[in-house]
């Protein structure tokens, strides 16, 4: 989707330019080398997907069981994945709803508001937040956040706890990518707005954000994917009861937690059922990526 948004700037828009570049022998060799590396990389990553598919094959024959609403009791051959799918979606959506405005505000702060030393310091805070291991988030959630919620609405381990922890974890992704995108907005565009007497708010909301839209949306998608794929921290705070998410204070189990909780103890169809959890998650991200591409395309034409 990033690619679409920058179509107006990149060589794709001016094929002649690329052609002239590519005439040289050294460039042709470089192109071939890079294509080779990309192919190698693609092969490696394809292997990951193939692995996932092969391992989940044994239960895919009974794929209807995934939607059976019989519950998840793999040892009794009941493989209903839907509640966990909804839980994953609910947790990731909630987290993104919180992290998107906060992350954007963070990026705007760093790029437009903060004096240089403060901006540098705050960027370090964001980077550190990105680097705090999920185990530490989980520990903090389990020993501080969950008891806090439990005092208010037991059991405490809940969708809300998962949303809050996930929002914290993906906020740096939103902020860091948005900072990079906002920085890339050409100075000339912004100074044009200043010359027109537009205030900071108008400059940011009306000029900078739309210009950086591609990178920011890319960051949102990355963050959503990260939220869907996060495992350890959610496992520690979400309660992990397999049920449809019916309220913020209800415990839920997300797909990743399902894999991490049971994989070490699973054999046979139970094990393939867990890989199928991973596959469903991957399809979900595929859908997300595809939607993102569509949205960006719509923006470009609209």
């Amino acid at each position, binding site marked *: 989707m990033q690619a679409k948004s920058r179509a107006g700037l990149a060589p794709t828009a001016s094929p002649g330019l690329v052609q002239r570049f590519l005439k040289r022998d050294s460039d042709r060799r470089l192109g071939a080398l890079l294509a080779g590396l990309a192919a190698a990389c693609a092969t490696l990553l394809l292997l990951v997907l193939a692995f996932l598919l092969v391992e989940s094959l044994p239960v895919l024959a009974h794929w209807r069981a995934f939607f059976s609403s019989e519950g998840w009791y793999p040892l009794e051959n009941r493989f209903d994945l839907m509640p966990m799918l909804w839980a994953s979606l609910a947790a990731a959506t909630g987290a993104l709803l919180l992290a998107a405005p906060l992350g954007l505000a963070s990026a705007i702060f760093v790029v437009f508001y903060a004096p240089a030393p403060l901006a540098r310091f705050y960027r370090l805070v964001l980077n550190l937040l990105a680097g*705090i291991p999920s185990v530490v988030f989980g520990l903090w959630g389990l020993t501080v956040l969950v008891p806090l919620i439990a005092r208010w609405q037991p059991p405490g381990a809940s969708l809300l706890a998962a949303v809050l922890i996930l929002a*914290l974890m993906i906020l740096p992704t939103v902020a860091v990518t948005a900072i990079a*995108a906002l920085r890339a907005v050409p100075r000339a565009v912004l100074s044009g707005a200043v010359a027109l007497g537009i205030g900071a708010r108008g400059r940011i909301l009306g000029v900078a954000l739309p210009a950086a839209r591609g990178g920011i949306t890319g960051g949102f998608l990355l963050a959503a994917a990260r939220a869907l794929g996060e495992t350890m921290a959610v496992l520690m705070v979400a309660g992990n009861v397999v049920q449809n998410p019916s309220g913020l204070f209800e415990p839920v189990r997300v797909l990743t937690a399902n894999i991490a909780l049971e994989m070490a103890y699973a054999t046979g169809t139970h094990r393939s059922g867990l890989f199928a959890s991973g596959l469903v998650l991957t399809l979900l*991200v595929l859908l997300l990526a595809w939607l993102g591409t569509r949205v960006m395309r719509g923006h470009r034409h609209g």
Partner: protein
Amino acid sequence: MGEKLAERTFTTAVWLSVALVAAVFLWIVADVALRGFSTLSWSFLSQAPGDAGRTGGIAPILVSTLLILSIALAVAVPLGLAVAVWLSEFTRAGRGGDTMRLFLDVLAGVPSIVYGLFGNAFFSIYLGLGFSLLSGGLTLACMILPVFIRTCEAGLGAVGSEWRLGALAAGMTHGAAVRHILLPAAAPAVAAGLVLGIGRATAETAALIFTSGYVDRIPGSLLDSGRALAVHIYDLSMNVTGGDAAAYASALVLIALIALLNVLAQALTDNWLSRRITPL
């Protein structure tokens, strides 16, 4: 008047959001620091763990963590940059590039534990690397590649076409333009990708339990198993009774380590890449 009010509200909202994020961050770090600081000492950093990690220190675990991270970055950064350049500069719309991008976006969402199981099946068993730093590092490389490539590519894509035209006008080859103009101009995005990658790799638990393993002595070779810091923290806090103090101290060390790596990565991309800009 209304314009001024909106302006002020917006500014306040931005500052409040930032204050909120910083406050929660400080809360978490203070919580970890308060519980871990009393255990932290020079000997904690320089000794081997004893009694399942409750006593002693984390020296071998620090060594393993840094080695795993080095392997992951040594593989992912050059490969990632190459693929990002290919995607951004050498593909045309509608060809392999779009498929590759979609593919990368999907892989960015595959949970890390699946990478762990893949790494175990492919690197450890199929390629015969066993439980080793190498298996762990390569698995992490696979895991951080998608995000790294996409972030770098976004940065390259955002470089205005006037830079390319300028390079062309100066008679540069495309390769030279990439090296001297485009990559330096995309340095902030490369730094962002690096930061996200380092953060994710250093903090990873699930993928490493199945690849680099659990052994807590100093690795003698890259084919030895070695426990990463995040695995150590998980084990101490969730599995070893009475390991909390050491877990929090280790978490403190891990956060400090990531801060250090971040500053280094930032400095490296700022200086090394921007030094190569040649004025048009």
